[in-house]
């Protein structure tokens, strides 16, 4: 899988190299860097970068270029002088006209592009991993979300054979129940996935399994989309409430399988710092 649009990258590099050859002035360089980075973040990635992130990056670039140009008197001059010359020197009057026309035209073009955006539902700062309640009840059993642990986890050391059995059962459950959405390879792109918004969780992603303890996923599996707290709203994900279909042990088993298969370890419990 390529992450970048190689032709675009190549184009930017070649353009920069050409500028280097013609000994462009600071003004041209600043414009070139800005445009180059703009093209890079807006066109250079195989998967387009969302507008919100583009804004952050271009904001940073603008600030940085501003800081560079104004960081010494000499640079300010080599940036401003060509502009002043261009605007004031009679020789350039003819060239000035198209530039003056181009500026409002660019603004108009931008408006046009902005207006052309297809109508979409508003986006929502959804929290994919809301904080869990301190305790949940599943099949009449109270599960301590903070101090608790996977009741089968200790077998990993105490009885590896038994542990392997549980993992194998977890695997069966996964490929009977979960892979339609979460996919064969656990990548979250199962055959139903394109129809779903929010998309099913991707268990290969670093930010999922290793970032939380096992009780967290037990909770997410048992309570599903409907059990999402308000903070993770709108709680309209298609994740079923598996407590209706699976026993507690089965759900713990499938959690074991997820970790076992991906090779991730559950988030370790932080201990209170020593010596205080």
């Amino acid at each position, binding site marked *: 899988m390529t*992450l970048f649009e190689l032709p675009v990258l190549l184009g930017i590099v070649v353009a920069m190299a050409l500028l280097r050859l013609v000994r462009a002035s600071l003004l041209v360089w600043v414009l070139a860097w800005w445009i180059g980075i703009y093209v890079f973040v807006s066109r250079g990635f195989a998967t387009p*970068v969302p*507008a919100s992130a583009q804004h952050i990056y271009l904001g940073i670039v603008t600030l940085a270029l501003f800081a560079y140009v104004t960081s010494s008197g*000499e640079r300010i001059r080599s940036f401003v002088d060509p502009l002043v010359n261009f605007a004031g020197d009679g020789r350039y009057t003819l060239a000035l006209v198209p530039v003056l026309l181009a500026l409002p035209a660019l603004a108009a073009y931008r408006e046009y592009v902005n207006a052309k955006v297809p109508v979409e539902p508003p986006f929502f700062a959804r929290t994919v991993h809301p904080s869990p309640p301190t305790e949940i009840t599943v099949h009449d059993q109270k599960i301590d979300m903070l101090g608790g642990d996977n009741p089968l986890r200790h077998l990993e050391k105490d009885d590896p054979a038994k542990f392997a059995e549980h993992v194998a059962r977890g695997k069966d459950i996964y490929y009977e129940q979960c892979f339609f959405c979460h996919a064969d390879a656990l990548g979250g792109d199962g055959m139903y996935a394109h129809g779903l918004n929010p*998309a099913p969780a991707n268990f290969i992603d670093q*930010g999922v399994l290793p970032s*939380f303890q096992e009780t967290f996923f037990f909770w997410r599996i048992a309570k599903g989309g409907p059990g999402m707290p308000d903070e993770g709203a709108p709680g309209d994900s298609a994740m079923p409430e598996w407590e209706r279909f699976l026993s507690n042990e089965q759900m713990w088993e499938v959690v074991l399988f997820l970790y076992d298969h991906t090779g991730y370890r559950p988030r370790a419990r932080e201990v209170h710092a020593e010596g205080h």
Partner: protein
Amino acid sequence: MNPRLLIAAAIVVLLGLGGAVRVYFALENQAYHPPVRSLGVESGFPREQALKDIAKDREAKAKAKKYEAPTYRTLPFVSSRVAVWVVAQLHLMFAAFVLAVPMFAFIIELIGYFNGDKRYDRLAYEFTKLLSTSFSFTASFGGFLTFLLIMLYPAFTNYLMEIFSWTFFPYVALFFAEAGFLYSYYYGWGKFHPVVHLLLGLGVNVVGTLIMFIADSWASFMMTPGGVSDAGALIDPWAALDNFTWMPINIHRFIGNIAFGGSVAAAYAAWKFLGAKTDEERAHYDWMGYMGNFVAISAFLPLPFAGYYLAREIYGYNQALGIMMMGGAFSWLFIIQAVLIGNLFLAANYYLWLGMGRIEGTQSYQRYVKYLLAAIAVCFAVWATPRSILASVSEIKAMGGTLHPALGVLGVMSAKNTAVNILILTTYVSFLFYRRTGKRPTVAWAALGNAVQFLIFFGVSGFVIALGVYGYFVDAATRIGLSIPQVLSVLIGMVTMTVIDAFMLRGAEQTGETHWGKLPAISQYVLIFIAVTFTWLMGLMGYVRSGLRQHWHVYGVMRDQSVDAFTPTLGFATQVISVIVIIFFAFIAFVFWLSSLHDKPDWGSAGQGPRGSHGPGGGRH
């Protein structure tokens, strides 16, 4: 002025007023009004008597009313949360300022004592002048806050007293001690033996820090209570004080305060610089701003690590709090935090580069500026890359989730830690370049020294980046552990480079003199920008700390049952923070103005104030 125009304006105003009145009555007419009953019509009923009976009844009831201790009271117009929030934050900001300024006043005085340069002593005094008014404001806001808490949250305040009343007497005693030390330090300037005076300064600082430690225990207890039973009864007073986040907050605030105080003091100098009339004044305030900023940035560099320690303890106390903070609703605030911090780094470097302009002669280091800048911009971009990106539905579809396949890699801890370490290192190198501008080393091994410094710089950067990359291949606990060697290598690198530099510049040839005050005015706006950003950052993080508790007064122990027991939207929170920052700077401007009165000529006398320090027409501002 054209009289016809005036008349036309008057007519327009009158018409406007008339229109407003007309609209008011129109609306008033539409409102529901109870039907008017004429007393006369109802004379057949014993109305008079009934009214009397009712009044009597009411009186009897009022007399028999039992006293019930309220759990909450409310204010008109402002919600209790916002009232306490604003006042507490203002109190914190003034407190931070009052604790920080003596710290560097003391350090600067100490430097002056050892190198015998009178300028340092004067500078320390100038900083101290900002203190006495601020001290009163701190206490006033503290009193205001206490009253508000008792008034608006009586039951909760009572509970805190239950837990912490034993800390109040030491607190008060320390307060008296602080007043004693502070005022004798300030009024006793130049009146004591320098060592005695320095000891007074040390006293101010030790006592001030202890005060903060005590107050921190109350705030941190609310977030991560310890030493109480499940129902909230006090079991172990010391464990309540020394709860999970007490020490991390002590440390984070201690360092944060210095950075904040330094930046505000630098803003003061910038403001004086901009109003200065003579080159001499400009030189003085330029130097003062430089020193304040130097203090601020030095304290700023270790803050990220203190922050991580704090975050770790929050996770350790309760996973749900940790997730709430870094992954949940509050994680968006950390994107804002990252943007602010990136701006601070950029501004700090920018100020140093501008500062090279003070030094005449060839500027051999200027040509490195663009590489430093590139490093900063890249690290800033990494630091500000959100883990899960705000995106529209079609953008999410295209990415297959809120994770971008390429940028998602930058959103995690490994990348961010690496970025912040490189930012720190780059800032340090900017400082090194600044320090060296206008000097040429004369020692024989200068070329070797330079080469070794370069090697250290690239070695440390390479090591930090390698560890960052390695972090992607290990589990979370190991990954977090990696941040320690990263920090240590940066620290060791900075120390060794400093040592080499110090020896190398011994007896260096001066190729250009430093002209304090000779730099573009924009540098002073940068100082003000840094101060405002710091203040805003402080308000933001204070909100995160307090807001994390959500619907709890004391997390997991005492529920918030008031109407404010919800988490406000991020937009609302940022607006409140902005208002707080504006109020704070309004007060601080007043403090600046007061301290500039000091140097104004007496009323009625035509004489000038003391040379080099009289205000830039302070009264104008």
